[in-house]
């Protein structure tokens, strides 16, 4: 994720003056480059032999003088920091050019933060699945034909808001039940990462449809799920930990599943288009392309990729398509992270202005609201301690305000992340908001450290005997 990148660069830059290692200016270039920069000075001559031409700065000019033995390179640290500032003079344009090239290569290269994307996918699929299953018995009262928010009312509001919901396309209990069941199915497929290019769009359609049908029964968690369902459809969130990845790793033949789904999608889209359910231009205040444009574009790109991959698997066309996919993935995943930052920054900065948060009693009130106290005894117990109420009130605000800024320091970010997850678990029980909390945790997961996810990946590999060996 971007934050990972940011924080990684941050640590690199700090290490650079320390080690005095002249480093290729490929700032945007992810992991391996930092690894080089962290290398002990002994490795310096070796690395310096390759890139000094590009690196340009005087630091490299110093190195040949200190040339020979590895120990001779050690004085370099002392001389390290000044060259950094002096570096501004000669090769600025060249450096900027190289940085831009490296950034472009990273942007168009292999999808970054694949594990984080997979965790977010699994997390939100789970949230939706749990929520839909929980509400299934009363789903007709909440989102269906028995709802006090009748279909007619939903349509009247939708004429104003232009919110998208396939549930409003058709009257009848059967239509609702079918759509609800298909949304559950989409959540399962998304969880497993099965044909994710298809199922992520089905997930988006299902989630938006259900939520926009019952827009007045949702809460903050639903709002987050809604947004993430949109962003996730544009990420490559099944690169790991998915059935898609397993199929690819086994080198299985593409099979007819994908083609079949593509055909089904064409049929559904064609039907929706011909009956006027979706249109090319947006109907709302937004005078851009409508849902038809989005869906047909995704459909056409999937078809194009299939043809190109079949005909010219090693051709440049295929590489261009992959690069486009990576770029979209990077932008969408950036939005996931940005959205989380926005949530915390907004929640935190508005709290700062509240008198109850300022006097440190804010937490006391939700603990005495009937709607948010499933365990009144527990809430009263926590609410009886002035110290605890104060600490949690101030702690919450501090945490939320600070979180966006800690992204520049990976270590601090990880600590805050762990605290945040714990706080959400507490909220889940104490305020009776399990889905909301699970959604927040799933969103936070985009900032999980790669090392932890890789460790989990290896552990999972050890447990499953039939699994292909992973490089340790």
């Amino acid at each position, binding site marked *: 994720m971007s934050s990972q990148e940011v924080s*990684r660069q941050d640590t690199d830059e700090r290490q650079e003056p320390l080690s005095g290692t002249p480093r*290729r200016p*490929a700032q945007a270039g*992810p*992991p*391996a*480059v930092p*690894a080089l920069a*962290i290398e002990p000075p002994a490795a310096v001559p070796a690395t310096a032999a390759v890139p000094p031409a590009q690196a340009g700065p005087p630091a490299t000019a110093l190195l040949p003088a200190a040339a020979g033995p590895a120990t001779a390179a050690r004085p370099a640290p002392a001389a390290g920091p000044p060259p950094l500032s002096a570096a501004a003079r000669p090769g600025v344009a060249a450096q900027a050019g190289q940085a831009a090239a*490296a950034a*472009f*290569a990273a942007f168009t*290269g292999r999808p970054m933060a694949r594990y984080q994307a997979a965790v977010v996918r699994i997390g939100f699929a789970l949230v939706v699945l749990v929520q839909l299953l929980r509400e299934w018995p009363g789903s007709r*009262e*909440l989102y269906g*034909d028995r709802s*006090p928010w*009748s279909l*007619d*009312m939903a349509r*009247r*509001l939708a004429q*104003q808001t232009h919110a998208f919901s396939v549930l409003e396309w058709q009257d009848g209990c059967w239509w609702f039940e079918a759509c609800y069941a298909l949304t559950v199915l989409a959540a399962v497929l998304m969880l497993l990462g099965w044909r994710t290019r298809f199922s992520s769009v089905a997930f988006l359609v299902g989630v938006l449809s259900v939520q*926009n049908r019952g827009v*007045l*029964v*949702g809460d903050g968690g639903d709002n987050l799920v*809604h947004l993430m369902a949109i962003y996730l459809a544009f990420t490559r969130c099944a690169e790991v930990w998915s059935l898609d990845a397993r199929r690819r790793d086994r080198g299985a033949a593409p099979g007819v599943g994908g083609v079949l789904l593509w055909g089904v999608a064409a049929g559904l889209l064609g039907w929706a288009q011909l009956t006027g359910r979706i249109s090319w231009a947006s109907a*709302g*205040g*937004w005078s851009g392309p409508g849902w038809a444009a989005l869906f047909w574009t995704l459909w056409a790109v999937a078809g194009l990729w299939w043809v190109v991959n079949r005909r010219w698997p090693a051709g*440049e066309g295929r590489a*261009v398509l992959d690069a*486009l996919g990576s770029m979209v993935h990077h932008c969408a995943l950036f*939005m996931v992270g940005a*959205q989380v930052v926005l949530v915390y920054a*907004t*929640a935190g900065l*508005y*709290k700062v202005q*509240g008198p*109850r948060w300022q006097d440190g*009693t804010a*937490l006391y*009130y939700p603990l*005495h*609201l009937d*709607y948010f106290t*499933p*365990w009144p005894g527990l809430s009263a117990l926590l*609410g009886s301690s002035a110290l605890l109420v104060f600490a949690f009130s101030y702690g919450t605000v501090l945490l939320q305000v600070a979180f966006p800024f800690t992204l520049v320091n990976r270590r601090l970010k*990880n600590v805050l992340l*762990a605290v945040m997850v714990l706080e959400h678990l507490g909220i889940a029980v104490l305020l*009776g908001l399990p889905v909301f909390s699970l959604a927040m945790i799933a969103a936070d997961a985009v900032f999980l*450290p*790669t*090392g*932890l996810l*890789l460790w989990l990946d290896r552990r999972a590999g050890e447990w499953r005997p039939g699994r292909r060996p992973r*490089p340790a």
Partner: protein
Amino acid sequence: MAERGEVPEPESEPEPEPEPGPGRGAGGESGPGAGPRVWSLPALVVLSAAAMALLSATAVLLGALLLTNAPPNSLSQRYQSQLNGLVYPEFEQNWRLFAPDPLQDNINVRVRARSAAGDGGWVDLTAQDIAAIRGNPFPSHAEQNELRRAWDFYDTTHDDREMPTAGVRSSLADEYLKRIALQRLGRTSGGAPITGVELRADTVPVAPPPWTAAPRPAAAGPQSRELPWWSVSDQDYAGL
């Protein structure tokens, strides 16, 4: 757990990339082995154009979300219609969770029915919700949000004298609240079909914690708000 991930991260990051050529993916595209892909000119043009378009779109969306979450400001007021067009309905943001201050009132919504048998007694609808939530580790949206948010919706679309302030939304709010009440009351009251309902909301402020003398801005006593009688017809029961 964050600690665990801390140590191995820098070194182990490039390792799980065995599929492509060495260096590719690990060292970005500038790794030593495969090096960055050398694109043909047409490919480069396509990719550059796509990159520009994508980055611009992302920046615009991010900017719009930022402005939407920010307090009303000169920029967001100037571009209000464009912002609304982009953000609503699908990118709606509402993150003032318990902010600037948490809710400090318990609102109880009650209803009574009128029928040929006379006016029925008050039925505490909120108490039904609370009863379902108590001791429930996984309450339903039907209990937590339906009535609570329906009242909120009514409150924000009507003024102090119960006059509509938001056109269609006000009438939708009336209808919604009425139908929630009817769903819970059923068809009859005192043995006769219901012909009208009256709702009231009692707001009980949570008393400040005993260890503070925090002065409450509003009058600290409970406040009651009684809505006018609404007539009920068969149509109001459609689908319930």
